[in-house]
């Protein structure tokens, strides 16, 4: 039974990675940039929920909505101020470094406001654990409410996002901009608005992912978002960066590998194993599992 428990925990953690990775992959697909500050938007979302629910004692749903709204606004603002001016810069490294600067900025703002102490995040999920296969003399399998909500949230988000991208005009505009920025502009698509929209969706997803992550792992510090951010980036690359189903598959696989290697191999080496699997995948399939091969023109 313990294997199944680990597997479910892995899928749960993987679902969080998948939701974060969706934000990464959409932004990469459309703006061709690695948004290093994405992980810190997660952390900001968690602090908003923490402030509203634990400090101000207001209802949880209000905290969740506020966190999503604020993170969306934050994402749009960051893009407009820090990334947009550098979109036509000569080196793509310039915007990467600016993203790192934004990441430092968000971490230090959180550090100044909330201090370096670890805050205990109270779960936003209020569902009784579910017992499976329980019979007399057999404890069975207990699945926490957080796990159920995380996995279902991930599936719902995944389906909605796929529908949005493929069925709506705004989604089609996103596809067009990620395919060819210049041609999309000639077809009358507002490129700036489309990129803003992508950042808005990505940041809103980050807020959701943050709440789910902190509900399962309640320690909240200004650096909470940075490692999950890097892991989600790995997940996005793993599945093929720029691809929405790829981010989903990459995230889930990464979560499972991490939890299983923690359980069966070594808890200290679990990160190393995750990264090793990534390297092997990339060496066999250089653009990730679902990545497209880009033809090089002379």
């Amino acid at each position, binding site marked *: 039974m313990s294997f199944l428990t680990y597997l479910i925990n892995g899928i749960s953690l993987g679902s969080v990675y998948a939701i974060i990775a969706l934000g990464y992959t959409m932004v*990469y697909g459309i703006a061709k940039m*690695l948004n*290093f500050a994405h992980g810190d938007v997660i952390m900001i979302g968690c602090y908003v929920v923490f402030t509203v629910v634990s400090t101000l004692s207001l209802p949880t749903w209000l905290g969740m909505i506020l966190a999503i709204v604020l993170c969306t606004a934050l994402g749009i603002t960051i893009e407009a101020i*820090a990334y947009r*001016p*550098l979109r*036509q*810069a*000569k*080196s793509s*490294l*310039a915007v*990467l*470094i*600016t993203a*790192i*600067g*934004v990441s*430092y*900025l968000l971490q*230090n*703002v959180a*550090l*100044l406001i909330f201090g370096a102490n670890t805050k205990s995040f109270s779960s936003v999920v209020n569902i009784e654990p579910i017992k499976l296969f329980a019979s007399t003399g057999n404890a069975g399998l207990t699945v926490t409410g957080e796990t159920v909500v995380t996995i279902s949230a991930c599936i719902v988000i995944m389906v909605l996002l796929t529908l949005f991208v493929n069925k709506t005009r705004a989604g089609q505009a996103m596809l067009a901009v990620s395919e060819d920025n210049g041609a999309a502009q000639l077809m009358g698509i507002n490129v700036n608005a489309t990129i803003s929209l992508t950042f808005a969706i990505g940041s809103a997803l980050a807020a959701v992912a943050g709440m789910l992550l902190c509900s399962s792992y309640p320690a909240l510090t200004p650096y909470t978002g*940075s490692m999950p951010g*890097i892991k989600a*980036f*790995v997940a996005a*690359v793993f599945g093929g*960066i720029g691809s929405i189903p790829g981010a989903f598959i990459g995230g889930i696989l990464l979560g499972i590998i991490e939890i299983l290697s923690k359980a069966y191999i*070594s808890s*200290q*080496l679990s*990160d*190393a194993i995750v*990264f*090793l699997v*990534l*390297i092997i995948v*990339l*060496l066999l399939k*250089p*653009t990730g599992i679902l990545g497209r091969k880009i033809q*090089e023109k*002379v």
Partner: protein
Amino acid sequence: MKEFMTRNKDNIITYGIVIVAFVIMQSLISAHAVSSLMTGLMVPLCAYVILAVSLNVTVGILGELSLGHAGFMCVGAFTSAFFSKLTVNVITIGWLRFTLAILIGFVCAGLIGFLIGMPVLRLKGDYLAIVTLAFGEIIKNVINVLYIGRDSNGLHFSTKDALALNMEETGEIIVNGAQGITGTPKNSNFAIGIVLILITLFIVLNLIKSRDGRAIMAIRDNVIAAESVGVNITKYKLLAFSISAALAGVAGVLYSHNISSLMATPKNFGYNMSIMILVFVVLGGIGNIRGSIISAVVLTLLPEMLRGLSNYRMLIYAIVLIAMMLFSWAPKAQDLRARLTGMLPKFGKKKTIAEGGTDNGNE
């Protein structure tokens, strides 16, 4: 001689800046004009300068993004500290042991760079970046679970804990897992740091001017064109990557022989460190060696100078970083600067036409 001077004028200025900075700093230290905190920062500062210059070989000269540079520094730091700890009673001449330690750090980091580079340099752009980041993290994690001890039977290895080494009572633990290596002889000092910077500069600047360097830059500018004129892509990519890694190893040696307890924490050898080195390189101008030195010095000293602002200093650091990037790279800001320099009479104008907006080094 005169011809040599004119041909290498640029490089000589770079060496000169380093030496003059050393002389000024050293005399300020002897006059006790700088705080002890600042004095203590001098050796790490030298290590950062070497790291920035060496990463510039990968990012600026080879044109590939690496986010795992701290991993190579980590290899250099640990192999050399291990060597020094092992031979501290065998080789009693300090400078000889330290020279050997530097060579060991250089070779080991270069070798790891070579081994990692062989498979991963086939990847491109952001994929290469994430794989180098992954390797950096793997190196750090592996060192954190490594236990090495020594007794009269020789060396013992384990990846579990210190007890699993099965040593005699008199045995000595050299590498103690996450606690790392303690009691490395303190051989580094500011002057040695400066000498190592000069050697690094000598290697890198000569590489750029050599036939090999031109081949590497040809790969950066256009892989297909370079390949079609017969440049061996794999060989030169590996050459640049290994040299870059080996020099990062030297920085690691300098770093590890300056502190009493060497641990592989996320702060000193994690991806954050790699990113910080990348910030030095990009801010100093990609491919611009002198720029790397200056930005490494400024960005290392900046948080110390802002220490009076206590909690706000990292916040200001972040804002300064964003503002500097926007100012130096945004096309609009570049136009504005070009127009401003154009408005200046005479000497400004010619420069603007000649350099256009490309005064930030090459891509």
